[in-house]
């Protein structure tokens, strides 16, 4: 399937631009016409993170005339393993600003528009309107569904990529010409079932593998060349080094998208059960330290995975991963005559485990809000955060 070019060509390229883009211009499929279309294109990149970093750099280098960036986050040292648009001196700086500085260095002819607000249902349509194409590299389901629905409503093609550990998925959703994201995944997984990159990790260079395919598709759509990845899903396995392509179809049972909804509620961040369990049973890292200093007799359980425990752990904690709470194996390992205190990395997983634990009759159990990261932050800054 080929599609007509998404963008009308700009009137001309300057002498400097011809020199800069010469390796594109001498490809017959791109040529002056394709490069002028790139110059006229307005592309919005949601998230200047793992996927957004290589995508923004290559879109800029390719000569996309206007790049919008939505990101409300600041650069953290743990981003630098994969977010190559940011550097050491950018730590603490808003990602959108850091990304703009890198883009200006790569291509001064690209106009950068920053959107530093948090994207939500109240501002998405307004922000997206006027862009030719949206490229999404965010890290959560709520934003994925929001971006999809807004793109459907505005009839904008949605270049989508997603990564986890060594696995990547990439596709183009364009409701007018093929399926949208909801046709592929009608509903998000319940909170807690699918780990995020912050919980499960991601191979840094995977961002480039998937991000480069996303840019490749954006360029093709803008210039109207080749077969776009509409209606196909590519699945990359970096360990086996395989790319697999499967078909994506419109879901005949799919509900039409008529407006934006509350996506936090649609996706949930912590399950209702976990929220309820944690409501009156959350202690702070400092309170945990006090319990230790007071010599209280309790049983501290770390519900993360072993490789996380090896990075950093709270002294005296026993490792029993969350999965053992969900399948019930953990309960036999716990003392009946002591209070059980759970913690994880940042508090989500321990809330899920706490819900299961209370269900098994451990009524006085509590968990540590903010997890080991709060411990490092508030109690022992000499320990590493990850």
């Amino acid at each position, binding site marked *: 399937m080929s599609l007509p070019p998404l963008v009308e060509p700009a009137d001309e390229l300057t002498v400097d631009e011809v020199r800069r883009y010469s390796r594109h211009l001498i490809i017959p499929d791109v040529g002056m016409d394709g490069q002028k279309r790139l110059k006229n294109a307005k592309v919005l990149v949601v*998230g200047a993170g793992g996927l957004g970093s290589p995508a923004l750099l290559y879109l800029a280098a390719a000569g996309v005339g206007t790049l919008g960036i939505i990101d409300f986050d600041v650069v953290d040292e743990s981003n630098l393993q994969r977010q190559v648009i940011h550097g050491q001196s950018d730590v603490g700086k808003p990602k959108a600003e850091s990304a703009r500085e890198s883009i200006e260095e790569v291509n001064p002819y690209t106009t950068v528009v920053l959107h530093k607000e948090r994207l939500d249902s109240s501002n998405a349509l307004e922000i997206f309107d006027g862009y030719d194409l949206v490229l999404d590299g965010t*890290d959560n389901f709520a934003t994925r569904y929001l971006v999809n629905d807004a793109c459907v409503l505005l009839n904008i093609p949605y270049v989508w990529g*997603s990564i986890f550990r060594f696995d990547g998925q990439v596709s183009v959703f364009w409701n007018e010409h093929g399926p949208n994201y909801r046709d592929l995944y009608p*509903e998000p997984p319940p909170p807690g079932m699918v780990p995020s990159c912050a919980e499960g990790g*991601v191979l840094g260079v995977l961002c480039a593998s998937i991000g480069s395919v996303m840019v490749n598709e954006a360029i093709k759509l803008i210039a109207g060349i080749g077969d776009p990845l509409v209606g196909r899903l590519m699945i990359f*396995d970096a360990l086996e080094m395989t790319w*697999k392509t*499967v078909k994506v179809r419109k879901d005949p049972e799919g509900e039409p998208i008529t407006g934006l909804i509350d996506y936090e509620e649609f996706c949930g961040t912590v399950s209702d059960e976990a929220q309820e369990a944690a409501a009156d049973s959350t202690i702070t890292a400092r309170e945990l330290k006090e319990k230790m200093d007071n010599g209280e007799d309790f049983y501290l359980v770390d519900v993360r995975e072993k490789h996380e425990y090896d990075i950093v752990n709270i002294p005296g904690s026993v490792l029993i991963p969350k999965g053992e709470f969900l399948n019930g194996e953990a309960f036999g390992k716990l003392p009946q005559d002591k209070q059980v205190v759970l913690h994880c990395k940042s508090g989500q997983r321990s809330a899920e485990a706490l819900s299961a634990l209370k269900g098994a009759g451990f009524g006085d159990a509590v968990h540590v809000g903010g997890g080991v990261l709060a411990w490092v932050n508030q109690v022992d800054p000499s320990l590493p955060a990850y």
Partner: protein
Amino acid sequence: MSVSVRVPTILRTYTKDAAEVTAEGDTLKAVLADLEANYPGIQARILDDSGKVRRFVNVYVGDEDVRFADGLDTVIADGSQVSIIPAVAGG
């Protein structure tokens, strides 16, 4: 019928880290039941409590999504490949 099943990273805790396993069965339902017999717990990550494929997981036989074939009754030919593709949101 013997088929190979591609297991995504997030379900490899059930398959002792194997990315590909073999299973027996004439239909997808039988293949998943055989998978469950060898890797307890994995089926519940693919099917919901009412036995339907979860809405955030796609199961492909070859390059076709079984939601657009016969679902769990989709006939599995000998030597075909079943792929389990879950939604992930990392970026």
